[in-house]
């Protein structure tokens, strides 16, 4: 690491006592504004303080252009503990080569996240990219001209990774962590970009849907997303490896009544109501 000279001399990370992780954890451009309230806490508290969202009990959302924006406001967040179905850990990995730095891959992903989604699906997040505490509204294509309206909450974001958590009614209860890191000889090898999903289907209906095609559809979704990111990073032929592990084969029947919040049922009803009203006018 070199020392930088200038009007105000800047010391290297070694001289000011920063670890490599702290140096790498410097927020990406545009992340500082939204994470602002946490920055004061970071000065006095743990150094991960700015990376975590503040605690929320129920989600609040503002209308966003291009998405229906239903089934999110007032909902609680759900992790794997609150889900119904079997618990899965799914890993989607792409080798980005030695030329792409992990921080560059994550900054690009955070900044342009919606642009990498497969056609027909909409992610309406904050204009500044992915920042802790943001709520993004989603319209997902589920066939028959119906869009599943749901959302995600940005649970965590730093220069090396970011994590989205799902609300009640989403297809699954859990979180998705997007990360990039060096692997290989002495960590100077190649950059591996990864999406890791830890999830349970949210209710019995989703569990059936996931078993009969839902998992396959989700695998295609994230493989396509990683491929699009790889192309943006300039990779000539991005290849994505998929690995699924069933971490817990038990279903949590005490959470079967999550079905009352099912966003798929509600989205179908909202679509039918919208079409009927349109025909009436």
């Amino acid at each position, binding site marked *: 690491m070199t020392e930088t000279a200038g009007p105000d001399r800047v010391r290297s990370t070694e001289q000011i006592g920063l670890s490599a992780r702290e140096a790498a954890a410097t927020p990406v451009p545009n992340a500082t504004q939204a994470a602002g309230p946490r920055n004061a*806490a970071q000065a006095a508290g743990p150094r*991960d303080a700015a990376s*975590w969202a*503040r605690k929320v009990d129920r989600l609040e959302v503002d209308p966003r252009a291009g998405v229906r924006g239903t089934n999110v406001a007032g909902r609680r967040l759900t992790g794997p*503990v609150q889900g119904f179905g079997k618990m899965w*850990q799914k890993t989607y990995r792409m080798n980005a080569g030695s030329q792409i730095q992990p921080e560059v891959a994550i900054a690009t992903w955070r900044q342009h996240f919606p642009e990498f989604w497969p056609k027909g699906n909409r992610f309406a997040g904050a204009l500044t990219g992915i920042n802790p505490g943001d709520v993004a509204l989603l319209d997902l294509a589920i066939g028959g001209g119906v869009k599943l309206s749901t959302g995600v909450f940005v649970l965590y974001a730093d220069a090396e990774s970011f994590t989205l958590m799902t609300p009640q009614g989403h297809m699954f209860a859990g979180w998705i962590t997007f990360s990039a890191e060096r692997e290989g000889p002495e960590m100077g090898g190649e950059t591996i970009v990864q999406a890791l999903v830890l999830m349970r289907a949210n209710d019995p209906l989703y569990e059936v849907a996931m078993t009969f095609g839902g998992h396959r559809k989700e695998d295609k979704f994230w493989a396509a997303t990683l491929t699009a990111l790889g192309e943006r990073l300039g990779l000539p032929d991005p290849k994505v490896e998929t690995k699924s592990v069933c971490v817990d084969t038990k279903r949590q029947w005490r959470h079967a009544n999550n079905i009352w919040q099912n966003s798929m049922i509600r989205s179908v009803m909202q679509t039918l109501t919208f079409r009927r009203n349109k025909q009436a006018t």
Partner: protein
Amino acid sequence: MSAPAITMDVRRIGDDVAVVDIKGEVTAACEPMLMSAYEAASDGRTNRLVLNFEGLEYMNSGGIGMLVTLLVRANRQRQQLSAYGLSEHYREIFELTRLDEAITIYDNEESALNGVVK
């Protein structure tokens, strides 16, 4: 993957309780170490596993995911998982992720061992 900056020491309290003292950075990279600590703490008689987070210096979302995996393993063995020593910041993260609904949080070791939430 980088070497995790963490230590995990297992202490036995009586026949059926084990405490894991966690010091350092909890990230996904320390999963093998946590699972080794879990193996050491689970000798067939252990029915309560207590995680001591007094020495926790840093935790990212990968670390939270790892705790969920630990929770699944403990549930499979019908073991109760609890924690103490969390700072206000990390207690909020447990509440935000709703992990506190499955891992009981105590203020200190004494209350954790007695099973008394203050």
